[in-house]
């Protein structure tokens, strides 16, 4: 199969391109491309995380913005306590060290995912979609009314978190940090989706009844997958808060969950890199079209519509149908 050797080549090419991107962007005078690419990387992580439960596990979560948002707020809240120099709840000191905030975001979003997952996995199908939505919306309303952390106006993070030895005020540095995290994330995800665990997860998507009949308790596996996925989104949220230097309830709103879902479907459900491609296509289209016309949503809508109607399985499917790759 052409697939097996084409793929590593393509991936390496992509990686090289991503590494070269800031310099190329600068040289050609399109500096903003670097920030655009940073956003793509971050959303790529979020979408791929969602895809892990949605595409592989068949759990259509409509509440993943909750994890994205909480990841962002962990960074924001820790920063605020750091800046004001008053510990959180009188106990936990604030910090602006990325080596602490990222793990903290992972931890908190993991705990949140465990809670939300434990509740919502008791249902399935449409009910699961709606209950994840409901729980995420509750969190949204909570943050909207939390005046201490800016409520609806959000939390401004005046300085990006620090990493020892790096100048985090430089846009290229942030880009490379995000790229490194993204590469690590996808490497892990690659192993994960080919593991025994994923084999089970994909089986559960196809028939829970069958999986139970061969001796498996579905709930535990689904919950673990949900937690992993929530942590991925939390990571993305934490990076986003660092990149935007801002966290707001907007990150938790259901429309954000919807966007993630659109990215996943656009790129290709249940494929490893599909969601990443989906995120790239979505974000790039959005900003490209918006810079051309104020009626960009019309264009975006039409393009998305054509993609669903004429590609079966998203953008990824188009690639794999190109001649010579089958």
């Amino acid at each position: 199969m052409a697939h097996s050797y084409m793929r590593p080549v393509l991936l390496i090419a992509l990686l090289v391109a991503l590494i070269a991107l800031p310099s190329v962007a600068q040289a050609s005078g399109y500096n903003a491309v670097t920030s655009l690419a940073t956003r793509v990387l971050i959303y790529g992580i979020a979408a791929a995380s969602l895809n892990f439960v949605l595409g592989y596990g068949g759990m259509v979560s409509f509440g993943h913005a909750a994890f994205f948002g909480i990841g962002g707020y962990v960074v924001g809240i820790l920063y605020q306590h750091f800046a004001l120099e008053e510990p959180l709840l009188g106990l936990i000191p604030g910090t602006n060290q990325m080596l602490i905030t990222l793990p903290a975001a992972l931890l908190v979003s993991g705990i949140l995912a465990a809670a939300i997952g434990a509740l919502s996995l008791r249902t399935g199908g449409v009910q699961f979609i709606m209950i994840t939505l409901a729980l995420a919306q509750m969190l949204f309303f909570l943050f909207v009314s939390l005046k201490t952390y800016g409520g609806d106006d959000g939390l401004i993070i005046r300085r990006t978190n620090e990493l020892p030895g790096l100048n985090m005020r430089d846009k290229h540095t942030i880009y490379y940090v995000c790229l490194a995290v993204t590469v690590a994330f996808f490497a892990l995800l690659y192993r994960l989706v080919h593991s025994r665990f994923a084999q089970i997860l994909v089986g559960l998507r196809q028939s829970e009844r069958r999986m139970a009949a061969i001796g498996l308790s579905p709930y535990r596996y689904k919950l673990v997958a949900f937690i992993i996925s929530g942590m991925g989104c939390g990571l993305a949220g934490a990076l986003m808060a660092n990149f935007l230097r801002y966290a707001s309830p907007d990150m938790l709103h259901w429309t954000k969950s919807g966007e993630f879902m659109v990215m996943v479907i656009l790129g290709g459900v249940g494929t490893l890199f599909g969601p990443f491609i989906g995120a790239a296509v979505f974000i790039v289209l959005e900003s490209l079209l918006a810079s051309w016309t104020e009626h960009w949503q019309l264009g975006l809508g039409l393009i998305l519509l054509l993609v669903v109607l004429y590609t079966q399985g998203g953008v990824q499917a188009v690639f794999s149908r190109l001649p010579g790759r089958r």
Partner: protein
Amino acid sequence: MTLFIEQMLNGLQFGVTLFLLAAGLTLIFGIMGVINLAHGSIYMVGAYAGTVVATQTGSFWLGIPAALAAAALVGAAMEFLVIRRLYQRDHLDQVLATFSLILIFNQVITLIFGRQPLFVATPEFLSGSIEVLPGLLYPAYRLAIIVVGLAVALGLYLLINKTRIGMLVRAGSTNRDMVRALGVDVRLLYTVVFGLGALLAGLAGFMAGPILAVQVGMGEQILITTFVVVVVGGVGSIRGAFFASLLLGVIDTALRAYLPGLLRQIMVGPEADALGAGISSMGIYLLMAIVLLIRPKGLFIPKS
């Protein structure tokens, strides 16, 4: 006491309004099994079409057929051009397709009617209040909504549960090919039913005109609430959607009306108000979460 009755009446009325909005969705989502995020857009189309015609002609009555026709036509066209290709596919493709339709509809409405909300007059004969109980005045227009909502509920119930069309639609949603192999033109049937669902959305949109803002994006605001109604009631059940609407309406109203007051008994004023508002915003979501945890299929679907 009058206040309490009034609040309950408000709750019921809000519930019926919700049902009016959810009715079309029950048909399309609950029964045909299509996740149609653009349902709200059709609601908007109905509101705009009806309002524009009513304003241009000066007659509220002429607005009604305009709203119904526009919504039904747009709905049928949407089914014919887009949705029809997606029945066999994953629900997720429906999500993406109808999401793009939202973007398209909003932009097209903006291009045609501009960005400002439209002016809608309440029809003269419904603009006053009626004394429903001694000392309890109630806006006539809202009573009209209740009447229309109840009529729609009854009509839908009969259609789905007592007619062959209803059976065929339900049958088709689980096994399209088999329905076709038994000699029924499912495609036509679905176009018609989708059009009917759209028509109901259009009706809801037009009826909402005099009490809400007719503006771009008005559909998305109600979309989630209506999905909640359908799911709480039990997907596919008209009866469920109806009672869930009333339940949500009453609970929501009661929370808004009484929760801050209750909280104020145990906390200081402003905090109680903010917390009360916060909890009541979460109200419907909280309710849905609780309902689904206790009855995972919704209220009106038998357990097994």
